[in-house]
């Protein structure tokens, strides 16, 4: 099977070792605390921001129908977008795979003699594994968000789709200050953030190329949208003469009116804001950038160049499948905050660009089920992700469909296969069922104290180590019924 997402991402952090990373996350006490705090804050912010929306359910179904309609006519809207964008002097490049997008970006950089690149914080750029590609091309990379700046300092992958560095301790960041920034270590978060913000600005002003992930693009007007909270993407849309904007095919929006609704849905659900702090609509190529020539004798004019990279990377193939609805997702991050599993294990455990319930669906669909078969099983089936989704995406069903696929392709853990065998044998008829109940009781009862099995039985230690198991009752219900 062809791997459409950049395979090196998976090679660096194989999804197969998910179980091990889960175990690591569970022993990281700090991670547990920061995840539950963040989830609490974000969930409250989300519900508070919808409290003043009179018809939030109507908003949700409207957002859903916009997204479904868009996907149903995706080719038409993309064509319209391309015509509109080209008409405004924006270069449009269709990238079938991550590698195509990366090649295009690196060639552009070479052609323009680029030395340093400002790189936005959107997940799609991580999907490209862009940092590695830029490093290999000997380009200097500067992150544009405080979160990504902290990740670069500590050399860690993102822990959340929206709040990329929420899992990193301030102590860890602070330790890197003297060596990486030549600044004394401090634990004052305010001063750490303002240092980061100042450094980011200073770097961005120097950058000769900007690469951003687009939030949306409007087919009707050809507007390219950057929604963010730190203002640096807006700065980038004015500063360097070369700006590359990468967008997943699915993020096209038919009209400006639809855009307003989706921006709102994304900001309210993911961050509890009515809108992002900075929403930039890029429309036509701006006037030429003016700069003084080295001897200051005259003013040089260089035309700005905007390149829109439309990335497929498996998306159109995904759309052909029953699970294509997953592309209605607008990556707000609300399902992460609502997911009881994400809240325990964090984003790094998923080992890939996308995490939480949405990541557990996207990974097997994009990387191939053989590389991420265990992810859809990391769900209690509680349904909280669907409840908070601003486009009413049925993530629980998508997760379940993938578990079905994993079981059909025999990509199921040994313990689950064994459990299935025993279960199948015992539920065939009443006699076997009763025998199985008796065996279970015979095995577990001797270890029970007050109805719970808490022993260090060699085979059961895995389950009793964290929490006692319930002990079978002395007399089953049906035994009682028969004697009644």
């Amino acid at each position, binding site marked *: 099977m062809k791997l459409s997402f950049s395979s090196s991402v998976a090679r660096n952090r194989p999804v197969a070792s998910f*179980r091990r990373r*889960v175990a690591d996350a*569970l022993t990281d006490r700090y991670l547990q605390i920061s995840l*539950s705090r963040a989830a609490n804050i974000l969930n409250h912010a989300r519900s508070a921001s919808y409290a003043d929306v009179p018809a939030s359910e109507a908003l949700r179904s409207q957002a859903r129908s916009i997204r479904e309609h868009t996907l149903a006519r995706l080719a038409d809207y993309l064509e319209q977008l391309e015509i509109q964008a080209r008409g405004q002097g924006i270069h449009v490049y269709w990238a079938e795979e991550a590698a195509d997008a990366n090649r295009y970006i690196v060639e552009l950089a070479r052609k323009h003699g680029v030395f340093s690149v400002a790189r936005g914080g959107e997940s799609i750029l991580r999907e490209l594994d862009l940092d590695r590609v830029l490093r290999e091309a000997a380009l200097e990379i500067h992150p544009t968000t405080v979160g990504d700046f902290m990740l670069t300092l500590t050399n860690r992958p993102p822990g959340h789709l929206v709040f990329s560095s929420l899992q990193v301790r301030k102590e860890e960041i602070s330790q890197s200050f003297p060596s990486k920034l030549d600044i004394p270590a401090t634990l004052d978060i305010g001063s750490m953030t303002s240092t980061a913000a100042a450094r980011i600005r200073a770097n961005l002003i120097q950058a000769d190329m900007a690469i951003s992930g687009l939030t949306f693009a409007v087919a009707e007007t050809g507007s390219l949208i950057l929604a963010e909270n730190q203002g640096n993407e807006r700065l980038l849309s004015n500063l360097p003469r070369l700006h590359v904007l990468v967008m997943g095919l699915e993020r096209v929006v038919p009209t400006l009116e639809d855009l307003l609704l989706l921006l709102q849905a994304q900001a309210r659900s993911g961050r509890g804001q009515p809108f992002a702090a900075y929403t930039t609509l890029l429309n036509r190529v701006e006037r030429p950038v003016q700069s003084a020539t080295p001897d200051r004798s005259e003013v040089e004019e260089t035309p700005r160049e905007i390149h829109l990279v439309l990335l497929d990377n498996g998306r159109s193939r995904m759309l052909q499948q029953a699970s294509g609805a997953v592309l209605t997702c607008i990556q707000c991050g609300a399902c992460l905050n609502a997911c*009881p*599993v994400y*809240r*325990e*294990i964090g984003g790094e455990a998923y080992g890939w660009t996308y995490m939480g319930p949405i990541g557990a669906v996207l990974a097997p669909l994009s990387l191939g089920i053989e590389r991420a078969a*265990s992810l859809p*099983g*990391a*769900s*209690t*089936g*509680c*349904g*909280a992700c669907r*409840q908070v989704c601003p486009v009413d995406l049925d993530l629980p069903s998508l997760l*379940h469909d*993938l*578990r*079905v696929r*994993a*079981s059909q392709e025999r990509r*199921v853990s040994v*313990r*689950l296969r064994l*459990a*299935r065998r025993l*279960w*199948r044998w*015992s*539920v*065939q*008829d*009443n006699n076997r*069922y009763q025998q199985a*109940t008796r065996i279970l*009781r015979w095995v577990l009862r001797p270890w029970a104290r*007050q*109805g*719970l099995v808490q022993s260090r039985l060699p085979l059961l230690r*895995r*389950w009793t*180590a*964290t*929490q*006692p*198991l*319930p*002990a*079978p*009752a002395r007399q*089953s*219900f*049906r035994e*009682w*019924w*028969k004697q009644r």
Partner: protein
Amino acid sequence: MYWTKNPPRVVALFATCLVDAFCPEVGRAAVVVLERHGVTVEFPLAQTCCGRPAYDAGFLRDVRRQARHHARVFAPYEYIVCLSSACAALVRQDYPALLPDDEQVLSLARRTFEFSQFLTEVLELIGVGGAAANPVAYHDACHQMRTLGLTAGPRRLLAQIPDVNLVELDSREDCCGFGGPFTLEYPGVAANIGGRKARSIERSGAATVVTCDAGCLLHLRSALSQRQSDCTVRHLAEVLAADS
């Protein structure tokens, strides 16, 4: 004291595996409550597992087989009362989707009711009685709340208990961490989620936590015992059956 609007009926009890093997007291309590309201309870001994764990793990062929078996076993009964919301949700919602042409299965889905649902929607009970150590918190099982949409009924049944003091959990919409095969695959994560729920229960000051799902009941019991909590976990049937 007890008043039923509708005449009593015969019901078949769908006890579920967890109730049968791990908490039979729930089944006995359900029999007490139902019989108290003039309902004749029958327990078809041929019932085994509805297939819930196989469904969660993605083994649909196994679930279809269990669904047909289940539909045959309960075919003679007009009403089926299920003691665990996850199993009731499977029969009512997922069976029809898996076997859309099987009349027996479709009819089974219409005739199966979750315990609290049967009391409030079929028997339309108002006064039931019961007793529980105060304060009492109700835990919404995910399938009860999101799939079956039953949040008000169980609370109404608790509120009619004489002298009851109901409190709400600050984690009202959060899962307890029991996920069938998930618990088998990721026991550590399940235990952590359970621990979080147990802390929320402790914060509420509840002496009794009531739920309608046997999986939640057993998982919460483990989680609370791990924290040496004095709070007891009960199925709704148990508190309704208790004498005040």
